[in-house]
């Protein structure tokens, strides 16, 4: 939340010292090393965040109501699938990424809902802003993860293959948000990670 405010000149100016930043960390928070399922998730997440956002701009600009309606449905499905995967991970994965991924309690939820609202009302500015946020969010969280096999994710990707084009030795990945995620939270009790949640919610490491 601190990063959202301080990263937006308008909000930072309105805050008048509110949402104050903490001091610089001596070392950056380690990137999260993904398993195969999580690698598949992030590759699809990046590709869909970018491609759905671009398609939304095209549809609303063309005043294509049928396409806009269909895409709005696709965006809402994307939001639900992303939230389901994130919720199934739990553990520190959830602590780090709930605020980005967890449906209407997250950045993705905000961006998707505004995109859908823009598609339904034909508001190009809303859709463009939402698409920009979807891209920024995908690049942000992609940059906080290491795919299985090493390397990085390509945050600008429009396809799964492009998303893994900068990965070193990625596993085989199919298209679509994984429906049955492996639980990264095995062995973690519910109390666990809450401090991590708070810490990550306020400020990226």
């Amino acid at each position, binding site marked *: 939340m601190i990063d959202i405010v301080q990263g937006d000149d308008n909000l930072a100016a309105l805050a008048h010292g509110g949402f104050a930043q903490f001091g610089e960390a001596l070392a950056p928070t380690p990137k999260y090393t993904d398993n195969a399922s999580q690698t598949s998730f992030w590759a699809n997440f990046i590709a869909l965040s970018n491609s759905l956002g671009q398609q939304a701009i095209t549809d609303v600009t063309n005043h294509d109501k049928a396409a806009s309606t269909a895409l709005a449905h696709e965006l809402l499905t994307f939001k639900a699938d992303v939230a389901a995967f994130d919720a199934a991970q739990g553990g520190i994965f959830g602590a780090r990424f709930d605020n980005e991924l967890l449906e209407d309690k997250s950045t993705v939820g905000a961006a998707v809902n505004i995109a859908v609202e823009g598609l339904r009302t034909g508001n190009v500015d809303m859709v*463009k802003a939402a698409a920009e946020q979807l891209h920024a969010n995908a690049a942000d969280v992609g940059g906080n993860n290491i795919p299985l096999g090493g390397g990085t994710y390509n945050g600008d990707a429009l396809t799964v293959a492009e998303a893994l084009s900068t990965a070193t030795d990625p596993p085989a990945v199919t298209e679509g948000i994984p429906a049955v995620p492996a639980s990264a*939270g095995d062995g973690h009790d*519910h109390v*666990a*990670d*809450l401090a991590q949640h708070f810490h990550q919610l306020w400020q990226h490491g």
Partner: protein
Amino acid sequence: MPTISESFNDATRALAGGLWQTANEEGGQGLGSVNRYVEDLTAVQDQLNHNQFQDPITVMNVQIILADISTALNNAPAAANGDALAEAALRTAHLDVLNVVANDDNLAGFLAAPAALPDGTDVKFDPHATFADVGAIFNDFANKSLGGINADNHDVLLNEANVMFKDLEHMVNQTGGQFDGLTNVHARALLYQMDLERDYINGVANNEPGGRGSNDKHPRHDRHRSG
């Protein structure tokens, strides 16, 4: 080597929302912020012990800081395990260090904690609240939750989160809204994440004290801890 203030500022950052630890690493994320906090304060302790301050006031202040650091280090493990008293002691000691250095020109570079609201401030929904008002509540929230969120501070923090949520919701949803373009998306994300914050606070409540019984079945060192 980091300076004294750099190490202490890193410790303050680690303290935000409380310390945590885990016996099983996940995703290369390490074993918890408590280790970072202890390393930072130990580094501060070592450097202060080897500094040769001449000003008698500063020499006295260093002794106060060293005592506070000792208190913080002694309470850090219990705080990471969710002991509310330890979390409070940790917060008090940490804030006392910041208070001491703020009044000593020879001890510079320490960043103050987010500002607390004046004592007695009634935090409640205000349809005329500004974004700055919400930001001031957030700073107070961050200040009060340094060291951890627990059964003792749950109610006041949940109230603050509720008020921030309602104030933001009013700003975002009122006719026309107060924000445009990408800032509107950011404001909505902030609102949504504030809702998530409320879930986390309630998660603490659901595990303390009654809910903690089930967790007590786990060996202490196997537990992650909430703030």
